[in-house]
């Protein structure tokens, strides 16, 4: 890995975080941001410390986690088009959130918890469905089951939204579209608590992913415990993605585009790829979040919309480069 490229990556990370901290509904000069970070009594301290700092860090972590999930799934399903949301996760999370709102569940954590439970429920159902065919976690069956479960959950969600008279059910859509507008240190702590172990496990098994990507049989002959690794990857990506949906709604394209982009610039071996993907995913989402809160000041655009708007042309560009 060339030193120049690494240095460039490091500089990108720092630049993105700096931009994230200095951009916002209130334009703050860098000087004030710096003062706000280190001195509790500075004018901008409240905004920088209590709102922007946790927001930027959370966006970075979520972006990195989603990107790693995408890379791991792409290796596991042997399909560069895999995305964490293919497994029915997003619809499951949406259904959970809508049920929580429709049943007027009390408590500030009701909706995120319900979204988390819904996402995991969808994943479990997809897993169960893919067992029916007798072939555990076969990529094709996984994808199909994911689509089926996703459609089912989506239909239920729409039905509840139409039938329920609870206030705010229709606002569930807004929440689901994704955003970091209510990010806090506590949300960051909760996400980190959920994400730490799955992330560590995925990073640990990076080389195993290289083998799985060769195919079940070659991987097996090279010494990988294919079944166990597949289950592990599936569970970890499910947990990570569910945690990010519960924290900030549904944000797509990060898991799809970032691994591709990193693979065009660096080697595809996962031991080096995964950490790089994490850093790039973090930068990507921080940047998308900056756009979402500055494009139509003072309004906030849903981050999921921004990642799609950036992600699709970026993906097209990447496709052209790889096919050329």
């Amino acid at each position: 890995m060339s030193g120049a490229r690494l240095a460039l990556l490091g500089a990108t990370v720092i630049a993105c975080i700096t931009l994230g901290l200095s951009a916002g509904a209130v334009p703050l000069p860098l000087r004030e941001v710096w003062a706000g970070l280190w001195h509790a009594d500075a004018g901008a301290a409240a905004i920088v410390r209590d709102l922007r700092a946790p927001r930027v860090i959370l966006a970075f972590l979520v972006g990195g986690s989603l990107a790693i999930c995408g890379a791991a799934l792409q290796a596991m399903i042997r399909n560069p088009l895999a995305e964490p949301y293919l497994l029915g996760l997003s619809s499951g999370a949406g259904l959970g959130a809508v049920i929580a709102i429709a049943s007027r569940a009390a408590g500030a954590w009701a909706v995120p918890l319900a979204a988390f439970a819904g996402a995991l429920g969808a994943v479990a159902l997809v897993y169960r469905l893919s067992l029916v065919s007798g072939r555990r976690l076969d990529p094709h069956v996984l994808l199909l089951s994911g689509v089926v479960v996703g459609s089912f959950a989506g239909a239920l969600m729409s039905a509840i939204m139409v039938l329920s008279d609870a206030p705010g059910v229709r606002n569930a859509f807004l929440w689901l579209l994704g955003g970091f507008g209510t990010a806090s240190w506590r949300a960051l702590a909760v996400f980190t608590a959920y994400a730490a172990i799955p992330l560590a496990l995925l990073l640990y098994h990076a080389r195993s992913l290289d083998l799985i990507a060769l195919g079940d049989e070659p991987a097996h002959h090279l010494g990988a415990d294919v079944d166990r690794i597949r289950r592990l990857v599936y569970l970890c990506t499910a947990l990570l993605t569910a945690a990010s949906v519960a924290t900030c709604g549904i944000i797509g394209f990060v898991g799809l585009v970032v691994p591709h982009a990193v693979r065009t610039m660096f080697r595809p071996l996962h031991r080096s790829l995964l950490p790089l993907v994490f850093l790039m995913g973090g930068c990507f989402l921080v940047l998308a979040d900056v756009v979402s809160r500055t494009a139509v000041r003072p309004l906030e655009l849903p981050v999921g919309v921004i990642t799609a708007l950036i992600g699709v042309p970026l993906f097209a560009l990447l496709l052209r480069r790889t096919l050329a």
Partner: protein
Amino acid sequence: MILEAKAITVRYRRHASAALEAVSCQVTGSELVAVVGPNGSGKTTLVRALLGLVPVERGSVLIDDRPVGQWPRRLLAQVVGVVGQQEEAVFPLSVAETVMLGRYARLGPLARPGPEDRGAVQRALERCDILDLAERSIDSLSGGEWKRVRVARALAQEPRALVLDEPTASLDVRHEMELFELFRQLVDGGLAGLVITHHLNLAARFAHRIILLDRGAVVAVGTPAEVLRREIVSRVFEWPVAVMKWFDGAPQVVPLRAGEETSTLGGPQ
């Protein structure tokens, strides 16, 4: 005895007849064994059973004198290397990176490759004669080169046995010969070699022993000259053949066309 199957019977679910019926097979170091037989005779099943991929109903399979079921995956990969029929890579690694994946059995997911591992990769590349391809991307290789890369990867595992499944499929004459020469060299260097092949004549030239299967049972076991005889081959493959002798003594099977009778040919019977 590195690979050994003792009278194994394998039956697939929902199949009335057994895929393998009381089949025995042994492969030791410096010995190249070829498993041949018509389609559906159970060649693939035999090798899969030897590798512990399918359960046996009766009999036992031993790797290095230990039942195959007791071998942890990674340890098994340190003893047996397998090159499957087909493999399509999704991500474009380099040849060197691909061969280094063969060290997974010894490194595991976490450890960093050391001089030992780099040495093993180097030797594997040399033995397969692909040193000059080391930095090439695997999606730019020809079929024959890709096969040799996979053999090198299996060698990087530093196994005691090497199993090849139909290695000559879709290879031309030059690559077929190169591959079998390489395989025989490796076996002569001490490896136990097992190959499934439909190519009777190559098996005859390179193998020390041939196991001929038909409908899940062993029809003949022995040296090529003992197994590849006209009456046996004609009966098993259901086609009239003539068997000639190459100057090194290896039998060469020639399928007959309609109207050709061995009595009218000037060759041995």
